[in-house]
């Protein structure tokens, strides 16, 4: 899930986990609507759905040791044997690349990268199926960021995890994801397989974003790819919320809000100017 600050990525992630309660709508996990669960059902569901937060400095309680931080989810979920909690914590510490002698250390004794490893261990201790990673590497330095990304990838494979990986960094998202959703002003404007999205972005906002990434290939500077600022969330423009920054906006964009629709091969985009293209544009009724 990629988008610029304030576009609603974290709010979306928190609503999915019901860390905040949406006004309307539903969030289905394996067919069950998370928003309609009662307390006990929700607690049970949270075992399977965990979150890693962005800031490893403020998301770890400073007065708790690594052992307590990582082991607490087990206690919350009813594990009573301190010996087996410790055993599981030690095993997981090794899996995330920390030593067992970290057990009794406090967050301030760890570096940023190590803290994020603790945050990851805490999310994985309950053996979840689905992990929301909310900007997990944004606060880390380049060299450490690569270590954590590698760790997240190998854990994903060894534990068969599903990630919802949120980031504002398009290169990181491309590296780790299979499918990518682009958000703008609280809406998903494009959703596609990563190869399709990067090779052939359909939404003008995605195109602009991709053009704005600084490249290591030296001076590219083909002018400004996205001009202006995202509008204030309280003053949403009528129709398409991107139209005031869009180089190709037409009258229809002002009147009607575009729906997220298939523009070919499962590539979804919310843009009036993208329809089923050219010769592929067989009306769906005719196909039936």
């Amino acid at each position, binding site marked *: 899930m990629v988008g610029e600050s304030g576009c609603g990525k974290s709010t979306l992630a928190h609503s999915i986990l019901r860390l905040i309660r949406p006004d309307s709508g539903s969030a289905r996990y394996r067919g069950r609507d998370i928003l309609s669960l009662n307390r006990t059902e929700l607690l049970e569901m949270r075992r399977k759905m965990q979150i890693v937060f962005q800031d490893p400095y403020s998301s770890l309680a400073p007065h708790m040791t690594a052992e307590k931080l990582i082991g607490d989810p087990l206690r919350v979920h009813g594990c009573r044997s301190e010996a087996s909690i410790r055993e599981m914590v030690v095993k997981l510490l090794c899996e995330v690349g920390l030593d067992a002698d970290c057990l009794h250390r406090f967050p301030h004794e760890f570096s940023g*990268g190590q803290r994020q490893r603790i945050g990851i261990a805490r999310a994985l201790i309950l053996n979840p199926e689905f992990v929301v990673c909310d900007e997990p590497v944004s606060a880390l330095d*380049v060299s450490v960021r690569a270590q954590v990304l590698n760790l997240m990838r190998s854990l994903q494979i060894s534990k068969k995890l599903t990630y919802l990986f949120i980031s504002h960094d398009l290169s990181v998202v491309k590296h780790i994801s299979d499918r990518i959703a682009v958000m703008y002003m609280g809406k998903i404007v494009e959703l596609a397989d990563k190869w399709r999205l990067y090779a052939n972005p359909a939404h003008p906002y995605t195109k602009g974003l991709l053009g704005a990434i600084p490249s290591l290939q030296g001076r590219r500077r083909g002018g400004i790819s996205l001009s202006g600022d995202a509008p204030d969330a309280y003053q949403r423009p009528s129709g398409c919320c991107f139209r005031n920054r869009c180089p190709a906006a037409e009258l229809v964009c002002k009147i009607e809000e575009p729906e997220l629709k298939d523009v070919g091969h499962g590539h979804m985009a919310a843009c009036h100017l993208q329809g089923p293209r050219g010769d592929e544009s067989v009306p769906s009724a005719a196909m039936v």
Partner: protein
Amino acid sequence: MDDVSFDVGEGEILGVVGESGCGKTMSMLSVMRLLPDNGRVLEGSALFRGMDIMSLSEREMCAVRGRRISLIFQDPLSALNPSMTVGYQIMEPFLIHRTLTKKEAKEAALNLMRKVGIPSPERRFSEYPHNLSGGMRQRIMIAAALSCRPSLLIADEPTTALDVSIQAQILELLLSLREDTNMAIILVTHDLGVVSEVADNVLVMYAGRDIEYGTAEEVLSRPKHPYTNGLLRSVPKLEDDVFMLDPIAGSIPRACEMPDGCRFHPRCPSAADMCRSEKPGRYPGSGNSYVSCFLYRNV
């Protein structure tokens, strides 16, 4: 900080890169003589057009800051005064350095706001920082920094707090300002992509030392120092697809426990015995470039 040295010529953009805590900001604050109370310049000099800044009195220094050398910070929200209108903050340098009357200063400030791309400057003039977006605030900072036409602009992570699309706009603005005024810019950043796009020359810093210097093209496409090399390899690239990244092992040493010899040796894949005990010198490459690594001592 230990024995850092660099220079920047007229109209040049020097990129200073390194991870957090490597001393980028502290070097810049030393040059501006704005080090925090727990920091001190023990030795060395900073020459600005032949004048040693370190030997100036505080009063003389005040005439340099904001007028001949300007500084912009990473976070415009905390660097701007929340209780003053943005217009006044742009005017302030004119008034402090007494170069213009109040009326002229207002006119000049409006011109600057236009120049840095603020829409409807007359209306924005009397607004406060919290009324503006991050990109707009950074433009205000740039306008204030440029008001007295400094010949050197030090930009400390000017785009780090901004979104990519706004970052591209601000970088474009810095490039066009350089074109117009021929001022020198020192751009401090941790983002190698930003350096690659705007800088002429690059200085790479690690743990309080400068370890590699050269043209942006040379350093980023043919890095010599194992740290620069590692840094470039740890960044996921849009162009290629690798399953696993190639990170640098370990983490940055803390300021209170700097390793002996080459400060990178505990993380370096090619560290030899010598690296553990001796400090590498600056070994020259083509042009003015140099690298501070024993691997290049006899090259």
